[in-house]
């Protein structure tokens, strides 16, 4: 019924239409890995056999696209991405909801992601820009094309790493397997495929945007948290270490002693709001990462 692996994969993709793009990507790369390995093995044993004849029994054992699609759907239904189910919805009062952020693992994981994002953003951004520069400059040299190919593949690898970080810390389901490029193509054709895929360009754009975005996330969060920490510790800082609440032009400004608890309370509120903000920014970033790094049905294959 299927004379090529590509036709099988296309049908599997159809069967998985409407499901999480990350799940679809995993299922497609699993099928490619198995079917191509089995096909190569079968042709090694019997070089005369046609692809269609070899694929028949292989697919029979592997499972038809609808059987495989339902196997993935079933497992996905039972397994949820890490952290995503950590906080059950409950009928808490407004104040309890506000304070419950301290026990919310998603919020703390998002804080960790946002702080870490300056470092990862710098690495991703530099690699993307420097790699692009080197690839473009060496395009007319003999090593130009292989170098460009390696560079584009490395970006796919980085996208998978970023996806793993996003899934682990932000709880958004991301691909766990790389996307394969059709085998048997010449280097220039593989390059053409890579360059013509909108996913490649989306990954490049994402990794470049990730650079300034990482800095904003990380420093924004650190500034807010240090403000909060300073306000909370203000009574001790002012009375023991003689630190002012604000220092402007070398001039320290203090509050009255009776206002100390209020300043601490303000710091605590800022810290709590920052955690809520971090959680929401993390969620939004997760959606953005998924949109940019995961191949969609509308994307070209």
């Amino acid at each position, binding site marked *: 019924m299927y004379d090529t692996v590509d036709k099988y994969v296309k049908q599997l993709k159809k069967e998985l239409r409407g499901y999480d793009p990350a799940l679809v990507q995993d299922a497609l790369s*699993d099928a490619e*890995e*198995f079917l191509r*390995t089995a096909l190569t093995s079968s042709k090694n044993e019997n070089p005369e056999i046609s692809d269609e004849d070899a694929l028949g029994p292989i697919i029979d*054992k592997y499972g038809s696209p609808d059987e495989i699609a339902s196997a993935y759907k079933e497992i996905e239904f039972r397994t949820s991405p*890490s952290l995503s189910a950590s906080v059950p919805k409950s009928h808490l009062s407004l104040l309890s909801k506000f304070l419950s952020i301290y026990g919310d693992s998603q919020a703390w994981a998002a804080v960790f992601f946002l702080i870490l994002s300056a470092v990862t953003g710098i690495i991703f951004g530099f690699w993307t820009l420097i790699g692009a520069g080197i690839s473009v400059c060496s395009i007319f040299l003999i090593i130009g094309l292989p170098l460009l190919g390696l560079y584009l593949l490395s970006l796919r690898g980085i996208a998978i790493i970023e996806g793993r970080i996003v899934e682990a810390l932000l709880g958004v389901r991301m691909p*766990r397997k790389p996307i*394969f490029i059709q085998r048997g193509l010449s280097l220039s054709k593989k390059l053409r495929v890579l360059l013509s895929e909108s996913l490649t360009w989306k990954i490049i754009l994402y990794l470049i945007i990730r650079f300034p975005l990482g800095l904003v996330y990380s420093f924004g969060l650190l500034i807010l948290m240090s403000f909060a920490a300073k306000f909370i510790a203000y009574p001790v800082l002012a009375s023991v270490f003689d630190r002012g609440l604000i220092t402007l032009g070398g001039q320290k400004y203090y509050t009255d002693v009776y206002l100390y608890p209020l300043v601490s309370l303000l710091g605590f509120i800022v810290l709590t709001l920052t955690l809520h903000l971090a959680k929401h920014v993390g969620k939004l970033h997760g959606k953005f990462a998924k949109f940019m790094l995961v191949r969609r049905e509308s994307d070209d294959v």
Partner: protein
Amino acid sequence: MNLISESNKKFQKELNSGTASLVLLSVLYRAREPMYGYQIAKLIETHDTNVQMMKQGALYPVLRSLENGGLLESHVDPSVSGPPRRYYTITKAGRETLKAWIEIWDHTKVFVDTILEGKNNV
């Protein structure tokens, strides 16, 4: 007839959904080196009786789910003769879980056999 074969299929599927994880953990526990999906499927095939217990493609999502649960870990290596392959190894948590699962499996086996053989029938 068709109804019976459908219900057999459903029963087999329900059994597989639990046993596949146990089988895969056990295969990787015994493996001397990391194994990829096709290798695992081929190894299981040699133990299969004349009827195929489960589709080979259905093993992959189970492997992924075990990895997600921290019982397996994996890495991708390029291959000379095909697409890059994902190699799986069992983790420490996986080994401990396997021990517990084997115990549960043994109890279940004895329990079901006892009922099927009607030993305790009044």
